[in-house]
């Protein structure tokens, strides 16, 4: 494990009496690709702005490489930011944009020219030196914004929804570009997004946030397969979240039917939330399943069929390569290790309110 580079301690921040971050604690390791993921207003951008020095937290401290930088202005910090809408200097050429930080540091002309060449090569935009930002496409401008940041050799690159303004295809290409860049540069990336797919594709670590609280920290696999609460389960991918009762260790009662599972330690006859991913629901003939239901919707999605099955009063979302026409009676089963048990939210703040992404 790499050493801890940034440590956010007890960060709180409110705007006009509205709490945005509440006692946030988070550390970031060297050379990590960490993503802050959450719906708008969850505090992810504020966290990034506190890291960049554009906001000062009301309480708490930011420790960078062992030093407290909470009150340090942005121009004195060893990190650079890539902004949401590129924020290029429209009155300067691409070369001048990239050279901006280096000129301020009084680097020699040859050093600056080498760096511009190197950065443009890195983002695959060689020969763009004398173009103006306005003449570039969105994706190209975004790459220039990244080039402008990385020529300063920051220890950390902060990226604030940098792909938000790009179209789907370009966004996917840029995701691979960013992973490649991070590996070539060997620095820490802190990435902010509301797009769960982006987060799953690129990150080493995902921090899921909602309403100023961290909901879960973990690897993409962990976040997807073992969400700790209903918010995380709902926010990351499609899921069936069903209020259930934990009968005993390794046995849960879902909608009146007992299902074996693998989780233990939740106690006996305790109300819990159960997450079952749509692709983990097994449909078969009525006799083979643990429950029976009726297919009510059927949509062809390319890789799989998306079906809605009404069983025991719940609409199950099912992804399957096998097709069952609307009106068919089907049996429903789930493998024990695909049933993810979660505690009910302890406070209202943790509850998934109005999130359907």
């Amino acid at each position, binding site marked *: 494990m790499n050493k801890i580079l940034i440590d956010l301690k007890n960060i709180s921040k409110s705007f006009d009496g509205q709490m945005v971050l509440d006692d946030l604690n988070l550390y970031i390791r060297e050379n990590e690709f960490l993503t802050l993921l959450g719906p708008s207003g969850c505090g992810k951008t504020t966290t990034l702005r506190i890291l*960049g*020095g554009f906001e000062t937290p009301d309480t708490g401290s930011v420790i960078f490489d062992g030093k407290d930088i909470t009150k340090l202005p942005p*121009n004195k910090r060893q990190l650079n930011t890539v902004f949401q*809408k590129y924020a290029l200097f429209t009155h300067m050429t691409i070369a001048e944009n990239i050279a901006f930080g280096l000129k301020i540091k009084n680097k020699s002309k040859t050093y600056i020219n080498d760096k511009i060449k190197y950065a443009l090569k890195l983002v695959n935009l060689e020969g763009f030196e004398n173009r103006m930002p306005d003449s570039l496409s969105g994706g190209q401008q975004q790459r220039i914004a990244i080039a*402008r940041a990385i020529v300063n050799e920051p220890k950390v690159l902060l990226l604030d929804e940098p792909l938000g303004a790009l179209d789907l295809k370009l966004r996917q290409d840029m995701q691979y570009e960013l992973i490649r860049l991070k590996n070539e540069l060997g620095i820490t990336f802190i990435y902010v997004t509301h797009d769960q797919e982006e987060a799953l594709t690129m990150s080493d670590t995902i921090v899921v946030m909602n309403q100023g609280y961290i909901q879960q920290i973990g690897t993409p696999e962990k976040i997807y397969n073992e969400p700790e609460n209903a918010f995380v389960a709902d926010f990351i991918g499609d899921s069936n979240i069903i209020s259930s009762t934990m009968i005993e260790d390794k046995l849960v009662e879902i909608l009146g039917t007992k299902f074996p599972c693998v989780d233990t330690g939740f106690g006996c006859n305790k109300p819990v939330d159960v997450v079952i991913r749509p692709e983990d629901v097994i449909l078969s003939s009525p006799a083979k399943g643990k429950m029976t239901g009726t297919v009510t919707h059927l949509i062809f999605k390319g890789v799989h069929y998306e079906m809605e099955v009404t069983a025991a009063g719940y609409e199950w979302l099912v992804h399957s390569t096998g097709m069952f026409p609307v009106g068919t009676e089907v049996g429903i089963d789930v493998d024990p290790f695909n049933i993810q048990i979660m505690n009910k939210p302890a406070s209202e703040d943790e509850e998934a309110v109005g999130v359907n992404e």
Partner: protein
Amino acid sequence: MNKKKLLGTPYFIWSAIFIIIPLCMVFYYGFTDKSGAFTLENIIAISSPEHAKALYLALGLSLISTLICLLLAYPLAMILCGLNVNQHSFIVLIFILPMWMNFLLRTLAWQTLLEKTGVINNILSFLHLPALTIINTPYAIILGMVYNFLPFMVLPIYNSLVKIDPNVINAARDLGANGLQVFAKITLPLTLPGIISGITMVFIPALTTFVISKLLGGSKILLIGNVVEEEFTQAGNWHLGSGLSIVLMLFIIVNMVISSIFDKDGEGSVL
């Protein structure tokens, strides 16, 4: 004639009567003498000592006024820009309010304020301070110009300032620039179109004014605007008045060309 052109007819008639025909008349009078024969004398008349002096004085005073307006307006626009929406519409209102009052009235008010026995001097003598004697001097004219034309400088600069994405400023700071460097390398160049518009909108009316100089400068200080006015109203020499107007127009055209080169986004078009 198609429908769109038909809708434009009132405008064409308007501009023909009030812009094109008067302009043609100015050129006709400017290039003819009293007998109607072609002459360049009215144009060359600008080089006569008293006319040249009035032109130089007008150029000098309006340049100084423009510079003062710029120095006052830029910080003011920046302050306006930094305020939140509620405060800011209130301040803009306060600022625009005097502009709704008649220009002549406001200038006359300054005359009353600055007079030897005016309000300001009464207050000064009450406080046993030396009296102010700036009425009928070039200083009073500069004061009048700055007072009347300052809003025309503030608004275009303000417009170009609010257009700057705050993240562009943040990006510059992020890349290591301190406050002064951000201003010199980012804010100032990005507001240049606004500054040029402001300069145009202050300089041209200041250069051609005759009311401010008449009311605050007494009859002693003649600007080129006063000379033109007198040729028309007192001397009755429309030919000379038109000739001098054409010369003045040259300065305006030069200024407009410079400003159109810089102001591609039309910051000045708000007024």
